[in-house]
């Protein structure tokens, strides 16, 4: 029974990691831009959820789409005002600029919302189910289902639609894409918008069961980068699987080896896997 509960907890946690990483897969994996502000995007979405609930008294059916739309706009603005310009510079400029953006967002949140932890009521979504002795949190189940749906949607968009092909073409070779008549800027802006919208969905859902604070993004960001790396750059399903694996490994190692050693196991496994397969599980070499 404990084994099943561990697996279930691990999968639920992994789904959250996958959900958290979904936007990053698109921006980092597809656009080749390291968005260090990813965690802060999610943090903003979590605050959108929190304020929608406390001020407007509306539930996730309202605030999750709102967060997605809001973050979509924010992603486009970030691309147009910041990323577009620094992409002309060296790689280092890109890294530092989104890192700077991360700090600006985090400290703005600290200034605007204070350092206090806030949280949505635990009972907002369905509470907890007991299925044959296994405890399942409704909020995490929704998060997991959404992660899968979001991944599938994004995967289909990129591989099955004309729009997706154009986005991929721009990411592969900006100049060549322009030569065949694809305007790169709108495509890149759209990719940033979609990536950010995914963080909006993630933030709105994670806020259902996690606390919200200005630096909440930091707890997840490193794991998100690891998830995308492990899954294989640019592979949307890879990130989902990687998230689930990390969740289960973390759950088991924390139970058997102790919480202080779980990070060693997770990151050790990560390094070992990259050693064998540097392109990640689903990435192309």
């Amino acid at each position, binding site marked *: 029974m404990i084994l099943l*509960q561990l697996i279930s907890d691990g999968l639920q946690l992994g789904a959250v990691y996958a959900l958290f990483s979904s936007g990053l897969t698109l921006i980092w994996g597809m656009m080749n831009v390291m968005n260090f502000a990813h965690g802060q995007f999610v943090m903003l979405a979590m605050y959108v959820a929190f304020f929608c609930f406390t001020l407007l008294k509306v539930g996730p059916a309202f605030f999750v789409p709102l967060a997605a739309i809001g973050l979509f706009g924010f992603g486009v603005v970030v691309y147009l005002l910041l990323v577009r310009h620094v992409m002309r510079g060296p790689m280092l400029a890109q890294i530092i600029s989104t890192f700077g953006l991360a700090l600006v967002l985090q400290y703005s949140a600290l200034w605007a919302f204070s350092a206090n932890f806030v949280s949505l009521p635990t009972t907002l979504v369905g509470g907890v189910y007991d299925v044959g002795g296994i405890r399942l949190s409704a909020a995490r189940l929704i998060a997991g289902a959404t992660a899968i749906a979001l991944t599938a949607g994004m995967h289909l968009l990129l591989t099955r639609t004309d729009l997706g092909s154009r986005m991929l073409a721009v990411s592969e070779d900006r100049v060549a894409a322009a030569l065949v008549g694809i305007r790169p800027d709108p495509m890149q802006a759209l990719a940033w918008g979609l990536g950010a919208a995914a963080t909006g969905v993630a933030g709105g859902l994670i806020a259902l069961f996690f*606390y919200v*604070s200005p630096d909440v993004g930091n707890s997840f960001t490193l794991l998100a980068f690891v998830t995308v790396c492990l899954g294989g750059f640019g592979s949307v399903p890879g990130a989902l699987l990687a998230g689930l694996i990390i969740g289960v490994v*973390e759950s088991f190692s924390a*139970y058997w080896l102790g*919480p202080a050693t779980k990070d060693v196991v997770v990151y050790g496994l990560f390094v070992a896997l990259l050693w064998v397969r540097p392109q990640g599980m689903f990435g192309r070499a």
Partner: protein
Amino acid sequence: MSISRRGVLALPALAVLPALSEHVMAAETVSIGYIEALTGNAGAAGQSIKQGAELAVEIINTPHPDLAPLTLAKNAGLPNLGGATVALTWADNQGSPAVAASDALRLITQDHVVAMCGAYQSSCTLTSSAVAERYGIPYVAGESVAANLTGRGYKWFFRTTPYGPDFARLYLDFLADVAKSGRATGKIAVVHENTDYGTSVADSMVSTAAARGIKIAQRIAYNANGTDVSPQVLQLKEAQPDVVIFISYTSDSILYIKTFHTLGYRPPIVIGDDSGFSDPSFIKTVGPIAQGALNRSAFVPGKPDSITYKINALFKKRTGRDLDDTTARSMQGLFVLCDAINRAGSTKPEAIREALVKTDLPPGELMIGYEGVKFNAQGQNILAYSLMIQLQGESYVPVWPANQASAKLELPFKGWT
């Protein structure tokens, strides 16, 4: 660069100015450095401490006769320094021991503070006080409780708060008393975050219990920055301890309680060692599912005409919240330091240190429930004291010892309904 003849003539006069202004400045403000986690995981607690310290400074700098006999409340400023006012210089250590050390260096060498206070996280106090020791600047820790802080043979370090061994004694006394009512308390699990704070309080717990012939049944160390604590809650659920004692910061305390709720686990007795459980955010975020959680506190607002009640009212007017234990302990530390500077009648570090060594404050002059403030050779306040409080409804109420209790102890831990 050219200097006019008239300019040259004016130079000797100018040279006198800095010395003069320094003298005047010294009489006007006393600069104290405060190293605190204003951002990061403990940012909420740090910001609260900052609000408390600012209130303490206001009480010291402006007359508050209604708060007498609290030290320095009655008059404006520090009387023995000609009414000099106190000014705090803040440094944000971001919860990082390395940043705390560089903060200390900056406060001493650039801001020229005469003394320092800090910090919420013991690991940050450890590094920053080491810098203060090297430079010979008095350091008063009002809130860090790791035992190792006062065992270093430091000359410039003083701690007003009760620390690890005091709490271990408190919890074991309390549990022994509860056991008299027939409730099992023998199987104790200690769950602690794995930096100086959690580790040292857990160590004190283990050794104090061992001295009484009690063996701690389960000890779980974890990293406070984690995203998930389900495996630890499952470990507890398997072992079924009678008592779970958490030595945790805020985000992790919130996660533990949320996970209790998700996994449907209610330990019979839950004790939170202050910090996370006392963070104002804790009650706001998980209060409704943490009913009956026990905690320690040295601060209780008390009766309407008491100093504690009035200070709580002032704090609430500023922040909209009640004064929590951690903030109150840090304020008390600042009062003790300012009292020493006043008694020293000087801003010279050596004079302040001598005054700190001689500190002997009776309970009536404090804003907190210690039995007084008097330091031993290690710089530890030997009169520090705490009581047990319990989360009932939307606030903590004192429940033990009986002579200080204002509500009845409710067991087992209810959690949620």
